[in-house]
């Protein structure tokens, strides 16, 4: 009968209070670890997709909406802008390069983005099969699109109007697949990429009164940080266009998210502390009945330290059981949320391994378990053998 087994039997001998403590820990740990996992992945996704985009130019409207739609492809565009309006910007000496984006159509929920081949370069995406389009109506598929829709080179499909599924098909012009990109874990995995000209062909009506061609947004990379200081303000003040800086908008958004994350974390910590109190009460009240058995074990050769370890082990066993359950729960939560976000935003959040921030959570929880055992452990250490075993 080793002492760890005895600890476990003692935990099981109080099924209700042990279960309560384990559940509380699992809930607290699960909440915090889920929020940590999601937060870190969302931030990671943002950073991955923002790489190489210093500024986005589009139609007037909400700057956050412009960024979300043009950079992350998760919101509706703010509108279209005439291509002539940005031609001058492209030639500005502070601008290193620009990428035009035209979007608004989808195929089975995946966005069709008209651009030029430098968009693929932005994500360092490699062409896995086939090639990049070179004439209008040819498309290259993101890795996730090819896999989910089971499309291959040579397949043809019709784009649907609008970003929601169930839009009217553009029956006059079919796209044909000429290439498939390798996985980048960035937004391009979810996109169907084609030439800007294709989008114009499909939407030949999409020219304004003067017959000018339009795009939805322009991604801009600056030559120097000076561009960031002067250009966005100049564009916003002097033109009908809107310039938004992803880094600003996203740090605002992450700030908002951070507040949510902090709130949930505080709730989680309170639950873990409550679990600690519950473990303390459980150990403490059980100890009243167990004074005799503690005295008995001392009679048969157990040192006071051994009994202290017994009590601490009981608390740690409950804590560890709760921790494991919490980690499983948080992964389950992430899988469910990922499934939801993938079906509505085509964003997969699938990081399930233990991340460094979680180690701090594990340490904190174990410490709580340890602290809960301190007073019961001291009591066990001081147990008066003679008094507890005498007849009175």
């Amino acid at each position: 009968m080793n002492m760890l087994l005895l600890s476990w039997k003692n935990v099981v001998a109080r099924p209700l209070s042990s279960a309560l403590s384990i559940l509380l820990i699992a809930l607290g740990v699960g909440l915090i670890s889920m929020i940590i996992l999601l937060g870190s992945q969302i931030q990671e996704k943002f950073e991955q997709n923002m790489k190489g985009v210093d500024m986005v130019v589009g139609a007037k409207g909400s700057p956050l909406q412009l960024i979300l739609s043009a950079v992350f492809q998760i919101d509706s565009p703010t509108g279209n802008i005439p291509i002539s309006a940005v031609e001058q910007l492209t030639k500005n000496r502070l601008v290193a390069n620009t990428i035009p984006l035209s979007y608004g159509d989808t195929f089975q929920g995946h966005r069709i983005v008209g651009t030029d081949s430098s968009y693929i370069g932005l994500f360092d995406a490699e062409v896995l099969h086939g090639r990049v389009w070179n004439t209008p109506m040819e498309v290259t598929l993101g890795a996730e699109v090819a896999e989910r829709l089971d499309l291959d080179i040579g397949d043809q499909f019709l784009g649907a109007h609008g970003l929601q599924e169930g839009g009217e098909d553009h029956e006059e012009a079919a796209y044909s697949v000429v290439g498939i990109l390798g996985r980048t874990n960035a937004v391009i995995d979810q996109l169907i990429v084609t030439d800007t000209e294709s989008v114009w062909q499909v939407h030949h009506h999409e020219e304004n009164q003067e017959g000018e061609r339009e795009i939805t947004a322009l991604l801009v990379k600056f030559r120097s940080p000076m561009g960031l200081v002067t250009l966005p303000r100049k564009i916003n003040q002097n033109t009908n266009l809107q310039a938004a800086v992803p880094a600003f908008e996203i740090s605002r958004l992450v700030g908002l998210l951070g507040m949510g994350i902090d709130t949930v974390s505080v709730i989680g910590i309170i639950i873990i502390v409550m679990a600690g109190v519950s473990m303390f009460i459980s150990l403490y009240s059980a100890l009243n009945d167990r004074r005799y058995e503690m005295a008995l074990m001392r009679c048969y050769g157990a040192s006071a330290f051994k009994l202290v370890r017994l009590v601490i082990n009981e608390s740690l066993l409950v804590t560890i059981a709760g921790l494991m359950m919490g980690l499983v729960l948080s992964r389950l939560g992430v899988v469910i949320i990922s499934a939801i976000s993938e079906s509505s935003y085509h964003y997969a959040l699938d990081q399930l391994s233990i991340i460094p921030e979680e180690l701090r959570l594990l340490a904190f929880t174990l410490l709580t378990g340890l602290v809960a055992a301190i007073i019961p452990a001291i009591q066990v250490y001081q147990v008066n053998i003679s008094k507890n075993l005498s007849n009175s």
Partner: protein
Amino acid sequence: MLATANLRFQYNNSKTFNFQDLEIGDGEHLLLVGPSGIGKTTLLHLLGGLLKPLSGGIKIAETDITQLSTIQLDHFRGQHLGFVFQKSHFVNSLSVLENLLLIQSLASRKVDRTVAFDLLKKLDIADQASMKVMKLSQGQQQRASIAMALINRPAVVLADEPTSSLDDSNCTKVMQLLRDQCDINDSHLVVITHDQRVISGFEKVVSL
């Protein structure tokens, strides 16, 4: 085997107990009798190293246990002593057999199910081996606690009013069992009691 000299004990500032010197030779069992309040349990706890005497010496198996540190005492008890208390105590989360295995491991003995089970068989509670101790009847509990006292073949078994909660027939049976098992193990039995029923059969009786 067991000898005390000039043993004195005092609970916090109350009256001092002065105990007469005791001695048990090889193969002897000792019965200590006396009225309540005379310090019988105190003396037994002193012999078991559960209390520290004010002065005097207690020699068991060539060791003066009054000279041992707390941790050494814990270890010494595990190696050389067995206890039977008036009220049986167990580790309640364990079965009868598991309690015996626990005691083996606490004394750093080999954990041997066969030895433990054989002992339960001799004490006629083998059928209850896998039951939780709380489910046992009073008489069965008392026999289980005798098994615990004997499982490590201690040099001395200290029994504190082992029969007070038993009826006449059980009383005789339990005392017979205790004496027989101690004989088999070469253990010395020290019983304290005010129960007149157990006096017969002891070669050495000391009145306090």
